[in-house]
């Protein structure tokens, strides 16, 4: 009825980050072949092992088929029509932030991520990635005092080659899937984190990914290693300008936690989602996986996915260490013609391992929102437990929600629990809140945040506030 339309108005979202930075860039020619890969590797002055890693991945990728099992529909991607390396032109060697092009600093300022010494965020170290390269990483000296390494992965390749060689591709092998193989072949930059034994990282670490150019893909690679008894909380944010073409983003994130280590990885993903007719937007095909290698280690993923035309993403945990713990907390909001197929895999390998999955999908407009998850108990996972809860909320009558939980157990002495629900914001609920003086928009946003509460509670504090604001923004509109 009347309210149905109002709800549609309310979820119309103005995208605040759609501007383009006018900056001279160095781009290589479109297309993908061995020469391009050699060129990227050469530009980055990489050691031989990495070039080999890339070329091997490329060979595998060429033999692979793009997956079509997800509940997604999109036009075939022409991989030869993409630029695989694009970087803002700047001096060869940058020794301090003063030498960074002010336009880049301005860009991040505008995104609410000031990088300069005077303005940088307190208590959060930031690695800012612009298209294919990392621009700056703040608080490096302070972190170094604690032995924490936080830098771009390109730098890590140069300075900590042994760690990269030891761990890169050990969690997500190049042959893992089509997009992971592509990333392994062409990845340009991303963040590297190393937390030494016994260290609790003194501040949150964060990466901010910005896609600026319309015709290049972004293929970032993140590697986080937490040594014995260490812990770190890592945050990731993403935005992109509004283009009427689709931009490919295929990232790989690998986490490794040793004995008693814990990694908390939080994402607020707000890539450009395309317009109301579904024109433009980011194709977000991401492989994120953590390996709980050590005993009692813990990896916790939390994500708030609000952007992208298409999201294909399953942050997962391999629970190898005895009594290791994996967690996945997710809010995915889709609107207009957005499509999301997201979830997690919890692979219980070691004994007494535990995993928790809480997924909240909100679909509005004509969007499609699917949860897809796998819980697997291996033969040795005796005494292991999983709890999954997947809730969907529908706004309007054109949106759809699916839940695909896959459960495989080879261990009779383990427990798997799955709960699922679907609800709709009803006219009666809205009227009830309105009849108590609460404005329509606030009523919708109260109900949506209420629905997401279990997940927001898991986010780091600053992030939780940001996520709440972001959802409110997505739900903001011109209510007549």
């Amino acid at each position, binding site marked *: 009825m009347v309210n149905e339309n109002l709800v549609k108005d309310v979820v119309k979202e103005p995208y605040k980050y759609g501007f383009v930075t006018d900056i001279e860039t160095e781009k290589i020619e479109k297309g993908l072949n061995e020469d391009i890969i050699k060129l990227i590797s050469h530009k980055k002055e990489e050691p031989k092992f990495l070039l080999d890693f890339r070329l091997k991945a490329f060979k595998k990728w060429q033999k692979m088929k793009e997956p079509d099992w997800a509940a997604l529909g999109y036009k075939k991607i022409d991989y030869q029509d993409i630029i695989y390396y694009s970087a803002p032109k700047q001096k060869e060697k940058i020794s301090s932030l003063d030498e960074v092009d002010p336009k880049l600093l301005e860009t991040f300022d505008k995104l609410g991520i000031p990088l300069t010494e005077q303005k940088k965020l307190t208590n959060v170290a930031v690695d800012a990635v612009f298209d294919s390269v990392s621009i700056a990483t703040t608080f490096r000296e302070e972190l170094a005092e604690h032995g924490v390494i936080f830098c771009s992965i390109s730098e890590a390749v140069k300075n900590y080659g042994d760690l990269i060689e030891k761990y890169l591709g050990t969690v997500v092998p190049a042959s893992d899937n089509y997009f992971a193989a592509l990333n392994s072949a062409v990845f340009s930059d991303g963040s590297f984190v190393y937390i030494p034994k016994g260290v609790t990282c003194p501040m949150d670490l964060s990466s901010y990914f910005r896609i600026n150019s319309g015709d290049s893909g972004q293929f970032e690679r993140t590697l986080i290693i937490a040594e014995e008894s260490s812990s770190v909380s890592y945050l990731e944010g993403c935005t992109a300008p509004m283009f009427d073409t689709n931009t490919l983003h295929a990232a790989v994130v690998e986490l490794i936690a040793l004995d008693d280590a814990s990694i908390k990885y939080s994402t607020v993903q707000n890539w450009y989602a395309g317009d109301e007719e579904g024109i433009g937007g980011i194709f977000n095909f991401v492989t994120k996986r953590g390996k709980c290698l050590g005993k009692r280690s813990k990896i916790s993923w939390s994500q708030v996915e609000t952007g992208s035309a298409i999201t294909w993403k399953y942050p997962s945990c391999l629970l190898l260490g005895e009594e290791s713990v994996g967690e996945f907390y997710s809010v995915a909001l889709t609107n207009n013609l957005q499509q999301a197929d997201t979830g997690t895999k919890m692979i219980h390998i070691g004994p007494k391992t535990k995993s928790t999955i809480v997924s909240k999908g909100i679909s509005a407009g004509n969007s499609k929102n699917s949860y897809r998850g796998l819980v697997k108990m291996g033969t040795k996972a005796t005494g292991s437990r999983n709890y999954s809860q997947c809730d969907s909320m529908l706004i309007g009558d054109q949106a759809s929600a699916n839940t695909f939980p896959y459960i495989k157990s080879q261990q009779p002495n383990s427990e798997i629990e799955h709960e699922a629900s679907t*609800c709709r914001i009803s006219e009666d609920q809205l009227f009830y809140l309105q009849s108590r003086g609460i404005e329509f928009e606030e009523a919708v946003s109260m109900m949506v945040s209420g629905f997401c509460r279990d997940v927001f509670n898991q986010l780091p504090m600053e992030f939780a506030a940001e996520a709440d604001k972001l959802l409110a923004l997505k739900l903001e509109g011109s209510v007549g």
Partner: protein
Amino acid sequence: MQSKMKESDPILEVKNLSASTDNLPILKGVSLTVYPGEIHAIMGRNGCGKSTLSKIIAGHPSYNITSGDIKFLGENINSLEPEERSQSGIFLGFQYPIEIPGVSNLEFLRVSTNARRKFLNKEELDTFDFEELVKEKLEIVKMDHAFLSRSVNQGFSGGEKKRNEILQMALLEPKIAILDETDSGLDIDALRIVASGIKKISNSQTGIILITHYQRLLDEIKPNYVHVMSDGQIIKTGDSDLALELEEKGYEWTDNFIKET
């Protein structure tokens, strides 16, 4: 007593109100005027339009006013949003209070109270000041503090939901409260608590409309007027004795009035 009341302006004036939903006429010319300090009871069979009348006064979007006016404090409110009506002092106690999962009752009550306070140009309350206020109001309905940390109405028993409605009324301090079958589903003790709560909250400046089927609420709160509704119209108005007569003779007795009109 009555003539003194009429010296002041009415709080609510419903004039010849007709309304429909999905092109189905529900109200067929209802008129009702409530002055400060008055308590009105509306009785009638299920489906006679009692609840519809209350929802329309509160601004429910599913109903269209086809003719007539609703005036609140002298202003026509036909086109006001439900939230504007609430903020300006109209309160509807729901027959079936709605469950809102995930939204904390405390936060809901605070946002709601502040919306009303803002309208009255009163300072909005932070969580601490609100705690103080709500504690005091919980007394009125004899509710436990634990209710506040639960989701709005979720998992509440029928009686708890109704008491939560009265708690909202106590916080919002409306000019007029329309209580739609607040007494239904209550045991005798809960009915007493609710009735005494309503009496404590109302005063010589407020108006109350009680929609009910039962005499027992009217034993606790004596109405100045009793209206009998049938088929979308008020077919008879009297004093509290009318309710007693109705209790004795049943709604069949009122069928004759329709013929009269």
